[in-house]
């Protein structure tokens, strides 16, 4: 099957659309979360040193460890979405293209 024909497939359009839908939000969410922390460190470090309640644990510590967990969550969301949405579309395209992948 010609490349032009693959590009005409409705599944191909759906795949590129579905990928865009997940790619940019997740990338931007990661970049935003990280640079929010970096910019706070740069311009307003004292905020991060504020303790939570009466303890010694600060907002910075919670946010810092939170971003580590957030990164794991982002990769989890992407893999879940990719397996549920992107993979079936890809398989359909490969099948229609007639080749084994």
């Amino acid at each position, binding site marked *: 099957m010609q*490349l032009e024909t*693959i*590009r005409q497939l409705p599944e*191909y359009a759906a*795949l*590129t659309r579905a*990928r865009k839908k*997940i*790619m940019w939000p*997740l*990338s931007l969410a*990661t*970049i935003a*979360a*990280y*640079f929010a*922390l*970096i*910019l706070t*460190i*740069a*311009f307003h*470090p*004292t905020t*991060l*040193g504020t*303790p939570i309640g009466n*303890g*010694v*644990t*600060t907002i*910075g*510590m919670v946010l*810092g*460890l939170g*971003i*580590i*967990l957030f*990164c*794991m969550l*982002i*990769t*989890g969301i*992407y*893999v879940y979405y*990719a397996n549920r949405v992107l*993979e079936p579309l*890809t398989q359909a*395209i*490969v099948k229609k*293209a007639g*080749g*084994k*992948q």
Partner: protein
Amino acid sequence: MKYNAPVALILSAMATCAWAQASSEKSVNVIAIVMFLAFVAVTLGITWWAARRTKTASDFYAAGGGITGFQNGLAIAGDYMSAASFLGIAGLVYTSGFDGLIYAIGFLVGWPIVLVLIAEPLRNLGKYTFADVASFRLQQKPIRILAASGSLVTVIFYLIAQMVGAGKLIELLFGLPYEAAVVIVGVLMTLYVTFGGMIATTWVQLIKAILLLSGASLMAFLVMLQFGFSFENLFAEAVKVHAKANAIMAPGTLVSDPISAISLGIALMFGTAGLPHILMRFFTVKDAVQARRSVFYATGFIGYFYILTFIIGFGAIILLLKNPAYFTDGALIGGANMAAIHLSQALGGDVLLGFISAVAFATILAVVSGLTLAGSSAISHDLYATLVLKGARDEKKEIRASRIATICLGVIAVLLGIVFEKQNVAFMVGLAFCVAASANFPILLLSMYWRKLTTRGAVIGGGLGLFTAVILVVIGPTVWVDTFGNATAIFPYKYPAIFSVSIAFIGIWFFSITDKSAAAASEQAAFDAQFVRSQTGIGAAEASQH
């Protein structure tokens, strides 16, 4: 079997040195030496096994594409969790608390980007190196020369940092002379890579990753056990003991001005997506699905590992600062980077100390092997195959070139390790990330996603990024002042990424859109076909079959 003689020679030489030292100095840990020798024996056994399975170029560069997503995730984590990041981040947390966390986060946040933007198209388009992807629809020769230069600069800086760290660590732990330690590391990594290629390098990485994760988990568990598994209790005790008190819970002096903070952030985040030894790992799996799975596992392991390192750093504050035995003249023996090592003794006596020391050594060996393989692939697959073989495929010659390149890189690494012994090399990992973010990452990203990219744009923009990153570090405070001893730096910031990455992107953009040549038009026209393959993997499968 032909390399049994050198192997036996090294083992006996090491054993002799270690024992000789052990008898003269009681501080040398026998458990560490036995465990380390066991690691070397097992990994050389694996190398022998892998050597018999390494027949084609695909075996040598990409382990024949036969690594599973889970294994590759662990191997990627292994490549990334260097001794520098284990001992360095634990040491940084020990000295300044929160600042250590800033680095740990920076090293992790690149991973979601690698997963979402890079991993799958990279696997679908490339074969053995990221230059395959960058040059997919552009002119082979200039792009491969540039990509190989970016790879080699990154690998060499990274390698120097690891070699010097290795020499110092082994000198301290095993009582070996610095030069001998560097030579042992150089010889072992050359053996792994030359004979066992990617198969051996991957298995060495897997074993080391499991050892490191188990060792760090045990240490963090023992620390948390003392504080009822409560971070609040851990922090409260650390604040009481540490000289900086509550200041360790907030950003400190590590990143003081906004430009440096943002610049460091850019280098760490986007540098990850441009490290050649990491990118190379995506070609060891079967397809894009496994590539995706690899990053998911890798991110989990790396994130978990940094949380452990963070706990270990805080554990070190509490358990070491109260114990004068770990200090001479008020300073931690061996410097802050030894915090994790001392803590292992405080937690589990000589047994745990021996285990963690051996693990630290294994970590160094595994990481330098991965770096060396990436460097030698850039030389053989990108430079030699394009410039000397001129694109005529000859796998045998290419593998031979790669093996020769590995031996040369081994020699260079040992020599540079010895030359830089007395220098502060901590900045070199930062420089490696900065170069990766300023040259490799922009070319790779735009080649995959930006239709208008042309050879001219990629070469000029990428070249400017590479050049700017290196020059600004040289005339910045870390090299100009700290290494060359000048009074003030010409360029005031420690981390130049904000400038060099911007210059790379702007350069690539400008010199691409103004490129009106016929070649440029056909490169842009080739984007659609490339995009179909990058999105669906159609046409990619034969890359891993042989």
